[in-house]
Structures are given as C-alpha cells and as structure tokens.
C-alpha cells in the first residue's frame, strides 16, 4: 500500500548518503529517530512516515528559495551574491571587555544582549563547545551568560536541534545564532507552514554567521593528534588574514597549521554549500577581513542587515550605545560579494563534479536564476 518512500529514507538517500548533511540539526529533536552523535546525524531506527518535517526542513533538500525571499525579505533588495541587503556596515561591540572575549568585534553578543534587554527575545540559542570540540546548541536565558559562548568554533553545531527541542517550551521568544545552513533550515521552518504549527512563531530573531566551511570532528581530532594537541586543551582558533594558516591557541602555546592540512578536514558537505553569508538570517555577521587594509579592520565585524526586524535590532543596539557602526566603504561590499560569488562558483563546480551532470545539481534547482548565474 505504501509506495511512497518514507521521509527518513529520502533523507538518508538524498542527503546523508550523498555526504550533503551539514549537521545543522534541523531533522533532529522532532522525533526519536534522528539524533546527532559527535557531529554526525544518525538515523537510529526506521521510521515509515511520509511528509516528515525532517525532510521538509533539511537545508539540503530541494528548497523554493524564491518563496522564502518573498516572505522574509524585500525582493528589490536581493543580490545574487549575498542575498538580501538592507544595509551593510562595519561594527563592533562598544564594550571593550566584551570585545576581548569575542572572536572579532563582539557584534553578535552585543546584538543578543540588547535584544534580550529590550524584550525582543527571551532567550537565545548559541553553540557551546565541549572538551572534544563537539558542539551542541545551548539555550541561554540570562544575558550575563551570552558572552561565555562567544568565539568561533570551526566545527558544526546542531543548533537547529536545540531550537526544535525548546519549541513550545517556556523559552518564550527565541533568538538563534546560526550558520548559513542553519539559517536556511530555520527559514524553511518559518515559511513551510506545516500543520499550522504555531510554535515556529517563537523564533523571533536569527543572527547569521559568515561561514566558509566547518571541520569534521573526526578528521580534526586526527589533525590535532598529529600536532600532539589534546582537544580539551584548545582555548581558541583563528584564521589570521593573509597568513593562510589556522592558529590553534592553548594556554601554553600557539600552533599554526597550514590551511592545506586544515582543508583536508573540512566536512564534505561544506564543499557543496553556496552560501557564505547566512543569506536567510535577519542580520549576518562576519569578521571584517575582506577589506584591503586588514590590520586596520582587526577587532571589527562586518554586518549585513537583511530584514526589517534585523534593522530594528541593529538600530536599537546603536541607540543603546551597545554597538558601534561605521558605514562600510563600497569597495568592502564589492570585495565581500566577490568572495561570496567565488564560493558559489566553486560549490556548483563541486556539485557538478559529484553528480556528473549540469542538470543534476543535487539539492539545487538548475532553473534557479542565482544557480544559473554561477554555474559556469
């Protein structure tokens, strides 16, 4: 009777077995069947349901991008390279203590703190790293704790799973800090309107993070082992501009790992990702490193304002004196677009290499105008 393959089977065939799973956690926490172990999505038992949310919300299943744009953003603000752009600035947290704790300018933490202060969100989901450099989404309900989760982690966090778990709970209005794949999953959830599920309305703010790739925990552990660094000793990581290395900080030392070695540890799924700026967030934040004069920009972020609500949050943060912003030079935006376009080209090239056909773009649609533009 059941000829239709289950959503779980489709997810397995189309995403997991194709190495497309980003580990975002969108399919996890909705049911007992998918779980995240280390940074892998695991299907524990078979589920025979069709039309499942697991498949619908996955950022690596077919997506109607146009529909999401229309619902979340102004169509005339769309750019092919970096999605909707309502405004583009350089920014940093006004509080130097906060900046010291943060990876770059502390913008994300400053925005969350203001949003929480002003009652725009009641809690935030951020990612938290354990000693094994595995991450999980963590619900933070106290403003004072937000700073503890600052800093880049370079491995994937099943952040959306944490959101799935808190939905309907007492978490109230939720803000989520999301990588591009996670922001896309959240956007799919917001715009899907499955079963009139009102819980999604709890999602009030998505702050996107610029993302070039994430590391596979297993490969990264092996790399650390080569450098005789135990995962729990790593206190921070950074990719300083222009050096082409990943710096690993421990309390005792700084180790520079050549990018070619790091590259080998990148999650396979990230090679097929066309989004480097979290195009489906309200606001997207990255390091201000794309500009010509790198040194001058150290300690600053760049921020793309995408939605009306995102704009309000940023303006409020500025008005409350929590965030400093600069109008970014036009060249910086162009640089950012160039880098983002390059990622799209490269990802599409990798996709075609994998599928061996320009007609089969795995999770992407070959008729999509953005896809068409960069599929060369």
């Amino acid at each position, binding site marked *: 009777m059941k000829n239709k393959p289950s959503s779980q089977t489709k997810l397995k065939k189309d995403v997991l077995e194709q190495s497309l799973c980003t580990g975002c956690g969108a399919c996890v926490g909705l049911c007992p*069947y998918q779980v995240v*172990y280390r940074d892998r999505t695991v299907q*524990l038992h*078979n589920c025979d349901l069709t039309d499942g949310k697991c498949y619908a919300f996955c950022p690596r299943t077919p997506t109607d991008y146009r529909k999401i744009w229309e619902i979340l953003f102004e169509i005339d603000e769309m750019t092919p390279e970096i999605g909707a752009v309502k405004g583009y600035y350089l920014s940093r947290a006004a509080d130097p203590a906060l900046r010291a704790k943060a990876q770059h300018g502390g913008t994300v933490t400053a925005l969350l703190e203001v949003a929480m202060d002003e009652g725009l969100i009641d809690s935030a989901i951020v990612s938290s790293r354990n000693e094994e450099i595995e991450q999980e989404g963590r619900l933070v309900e106290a403003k004072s704790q937000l700073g503890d989760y600052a800093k880049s982690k370079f491995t994937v966090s099943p952040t959306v799973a944490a959101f799935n778990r808190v939905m309907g709970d007492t978490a109230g209005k939720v803000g989520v800090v999301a990588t591009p794949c996670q922001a896309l999953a959240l956007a799919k959830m917001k715009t899907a309107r499955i079963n009139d599920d009102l819980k999604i309305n709890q999602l009030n703010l998505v702050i996107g993070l610029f993302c070039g790739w994430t590391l596979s925990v297993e490969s990264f552990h092996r790399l650390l082992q080569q450098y005789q660094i135990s995962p729990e000793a790593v206190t921070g990581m950074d990719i300083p501009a222009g050096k082409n290395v990943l710096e690993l900080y421990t309390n005792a030392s700084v180790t520079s790992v050549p990018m070619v070695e790091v590259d080998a540890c990148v999650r396979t799924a990230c090679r097929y990702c066309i989004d480097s700026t979290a195009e489906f967030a309200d606001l997207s934040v990255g390091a201000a490193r794309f500009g010509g004069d790198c040194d001058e920009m150290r300690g600053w972020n760049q921020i793309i304002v995408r939605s009306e609500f995102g704009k309000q949050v940023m303006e409020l943060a500025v008005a409350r004196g929590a965030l400093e912003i600069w109008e970014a030079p036009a060249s910086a935006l162009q640089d950012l677009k160039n880098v983002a376009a390059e990622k799209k080209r490269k990802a599409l090239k990798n996709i075609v290499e994998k599928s061996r056909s320009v007609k089969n773009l795995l999770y992407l649609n070959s008729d999509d105008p953005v896809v068409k533009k960069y599929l060369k």
Partner: protein
Amino acid sequence: MTKLLSPAKSKVLFLGNEAIARGALEAGVAVATGYPGTPSSEVIESLAHVASERNLYVEWSVNEKVALEVAAAASFAGLRSMAVMKQNGVNVASDFLLHLTASGTRGGLVLVSCEDPGALSSVNEGESRYFARMLEMPLLEPSDFQEAKDLTKWAFELSEQIGNVVMLRSVTRMSHASGNVICGKLPVKSRKAHFEYNGSVMDSSRGPMISTPVVAKHLLHQQKLKVVEALFEKSPFNRYVGAAKPELLIITSSACFLYAEEAIELLGLQKRVGILKLGTTWPLPPKLLEKHLRQTTKILIVEEVMPFLEENVKVLAAGLVNRIGAKTFFGKYDETLPSVGELNPDIVAAALCYILKVKSKTLPANYLSDSRKAAALIPAREQTFCAGCPHRASFWNIHNAIALDGHKGFVCGDIGCYSMAALSPATGYHTMPTLHSMGSGTGLASGFAKLAQFGLDKPILTVCGDSTFYHAVIPALINAQHNRADITFIVLDNAGTAMTGFQPHPGLAISAMKEVVPALDIAAICSAIGAKVAVSDPFDLETTGKILTSFLADKGSLKVLILRQACALSPEKKGKKIFEVKVNESLCLGDACGCNRLCTRIFRCPALTWDRTKNKAVVDEVICAGCGVCVSICPQKAIIKL
C-alpha cells in the same frame, strides 16, 4: 516424600526425564552430573532434589565435558554415575568421551543424551547416535516411560558388565511427556569409593585408567562390543509386534515406535504391517535382525533426523543377502520419510499409504478451508523477549551504540534467551547476524576482529549469558586477548541459567544441591585476562549507552561490558515490579506525535500496546514487569513511573 522415591511396585506418573532419574536411583547411582539444556534438564534437577535423602552427589557442571569427567571419576572409583546433557552437549563432551571409551570404566557409567528432533528448543537438530557408532559404545533408546526407567537401570548394569560407558538416548517427546511407570526397588546398600591403579596397564579393573597402549586397548574395547552384541540378541527391550510374515516390516526405536503403532492402527493395517521395536540400537543384534528380515521383502525404517538405524540395518542386510535375499528398503534414503525434523503418526501413516498403496482416511472436504479461516482469527505473535526482560534493554543499548558509532558494527550471537535477537531479528533490533554453539560468538568475534587487513574493518561485538560465559566463552576470550582482537564483549548477566529454568552456575553462591559455594566473579576473571572491564545496569540506558559508545570508539583492545540485571522471571523477581508504569494519556500525543509509535512499533515490549480507539499507547499492567525502560524511550515523557 517426593514421588521420585515412591515405593517399589507403585504406579507413578513420571515425566520421561523423571523416569530416567528413577531408573538411575534404582540402579544405585551415586554421582550425577550435567549441564542444563532442554530437553535434558529435569533429570539432574530431580536427582538434586533427592540428593540428601539418597546420599547422592549431584552437580551442575560448568559444561558437558567436565560433567562427564566428574561422572567418570566416580566410575573409576567403583561408583555408579551418570552424566546428562542435550544432544549438542555430547559434542562438547566428545573429546573426553573418545578417550573414555578407550580407557574403559569401572562402576556403571551412563551418558544420557536427551535430543531435540525438529529443534523445538535448540538451534540445531544434532544427532548423538552417531557417536555410539563412531566411539564404539552401546546405545539404548527407550520407547515408552516404563522403558525409560527400566533401560536406564539396565544401562548401569550393562556398563559395569562390559567395563565401558553406555549411552542412553531420549528425545523431547519422551523426556517431556509423561506416562505411568511401575517402580522397582531402591537399593539399600551403598558403595564405598575406592580407586585402584597399581595393576597392569591392560587390567582395566585394577590398572591405570588410560587409553594406551592404544591399539591393544582398542582391540579390547571392540571385544567388549561383541559381548554387548550377544546380550542385545536376548534383550527384552527389543520386541516384535505383528503377523509372523508381514507384508511390510517396520524397524524403529524411541518415540517413533509410538508413531508407527498409531499409524498402523489409524489405517487398520495390523495384519499387513509388523513392527520390530529396538531398545538396543547400537550395535545391532545381527541374529535378531536376520530372523525378522527373512519374513518379508519390504522394510520401512522409521526414525527421526538422520538415517542412523537405516544405514546400520542396510549394512547388516547387505552382509546377509545370501541368506535372506534382496530387500526393498524404505526410509530416508528413498525419501519415503522426511530427512529433517520430527516425525508424527500422520507422517508415518502417509509413508504406509505410499508403500502399501492404500488410501488414507481422508479429512472432511472443507477441513482445509475451515482451518484457514480459523487460523486467520489467531492474533499474529512474534517470538520476542518477555516484558521486563533485561535482554531487550541490552539490545536497545547495543543497537543505539552501533548506530551512533556509525561504522556498521555487528554482534556475534551466542546461546541463551538472547539468541532470540538472531532468531527474530526485530527483537534484537537487527544487530545480531550470527548464532552457533555455546561460546562460539566470542570465538567468531575474535576472528572477525582480525579481518581488517583484508578489508573488513568494523566494530565487532559479541554477547553471551552468564552461564555461557563459564561454559565455553573463557577460552575464546583468552584467545581474543592473546591475539589482540579488538572486540567489545558483552555479558548479559541475568543471574542464572534462565532459559533452562534458573539452574545455578559458577557465578552464583549456590550449588545444584543448594549448598553454599564460592561465586566466581565474571568481572574479576575478565580483568585478570587483561580486558578493560565495565559493569552497568542495562535498564540504565544513559550510562550503558555511554560505556558502549566509548568502547566502540576505543580501538585496539579487548573491552568487556557486564550488563547486570536479573531475569524478569527469576525466582527472586517474579511477580515483583520495580515500578508501576503507566501512560499519561494527556501527554501521549498518539499519531500526532513525531514518534511514529516508537514504543509499540520499534521497542516492542509485549506489555506496551496501542489503543486504536484512543490512538494512544497503553501499558498492560498484567503483563508489565515494571522494569521502567519504556519510560526512558518515550520522547514525549508520556510513559511514567508511579
């Protein structure tokens, strides 16, 4: 007084295995040993029960080989003794048995093998009758309950007379059926144990007990069989029923005699078919066979599983062909009877119809369609673990750990209730693809773990029960450690030999005779071997899961996890619930939940059912054993402990 000690001449309803035990008591058995295994276990259990009254020594031995060795020691010291096991137990004992038949015995020693044609409670339908021929020892097969008692008693006398071990074979339908037995006398005198070994090496009653010089002793051994042959010619346990010159002669033994009798009666063929029922099936008495083979040209041999009797009769008949003429044999070789499984009167009747070209009494025309209709009304039931069985929780943990680990590990299975995980794969959550003999799971795992250089690089797990651990796993575990096999070895310790009825084993502080004995600690044994050892409660899914996933990720060493939780049916647990468990109907979302009925569709404890009208899970409080594991698996936390 137990019925096993009923006075002489009384008529008692005995289970086949009790009749064997009574026969041993009448023969004056002093030492009885065995390893539990269906359908054999009640022989030792019955004797253990009367051990103090009858001044017996009865033990559950660690395995069948040791059981036979312990019994043989008593025989060497002049006492009557027996070792009892199921069919495949004889394989375990066989190495010692080979040497035992060569050295000979003194006090009557009987090896009882209770076999399981059709594998009703086994994972094999092994035949031990061939051991009788291969190792040249007399074989006796009772075909009713009185004979079970009488043949057992005689087996001791025969063993003593020839100075060698005698094998008595029963089958499930004999051991586990009941019938009336007229009891004989129980001996009053008991013997004193004395082991004499200063005589000549060729003097089996006074010299050393040894199989050498091999050729000379082998000849002596075979000469004893000649004595046996002569005794069997006159044995009252072989008898003929039927016409003097039957059209068809059935030669049979064991419970098959009853099937043959019933089939003849069913078809009214008493005048055309005769039955030669043999109680002594190896070596065959040639003169008796010759006498009956002469009377007819058609012979049907009725026996279960292997064509043992058929082959032996044919060999005899071939040697006698000048005197008895050519015969037509029916049996397993010509496929008149099935070559596998149990027989029954219907199968034998069908064979008779075929040979004698008679019509069977047909069933009513609509019998088949009616029975199919009735069958459809029977709810489908799967073989599964009991409600509250720790094995379900253990396999849940194992499955999840293998899935999380993500490297497609698998479990090598072993013998116990947990074999169900292989017999009914959904019950073990599809984790256990191999199942062989006791202890072989660990041996196989030890082998699979060495195949990485040939491209099979997966986490290898194996399970065994607590009793199985002592029985045959220890050498395999030592092998794994010695050869650096990276395996995760899981002991499903449910505090007893649960499958066969909670017989004690070396891990428990009690013996077969209810004496306090030292309990051997599995964890300490594994630690001594050098394994990494952890102990956990399988009902604690979180802790057990963490240990298992860490073991699977921990490469290059032997890891042991002991999952301790007593069997839900164990005498100390039975009827007592740890928790009262129920479904909170306001929390269970039914089909609106994303769980897709995880509790009843995947976890499948028989105490969990689905209320189709309410569309919610229900705990059947009558069946529920209160283990509380389902509380941990419900994602909605709708199953609650009260």
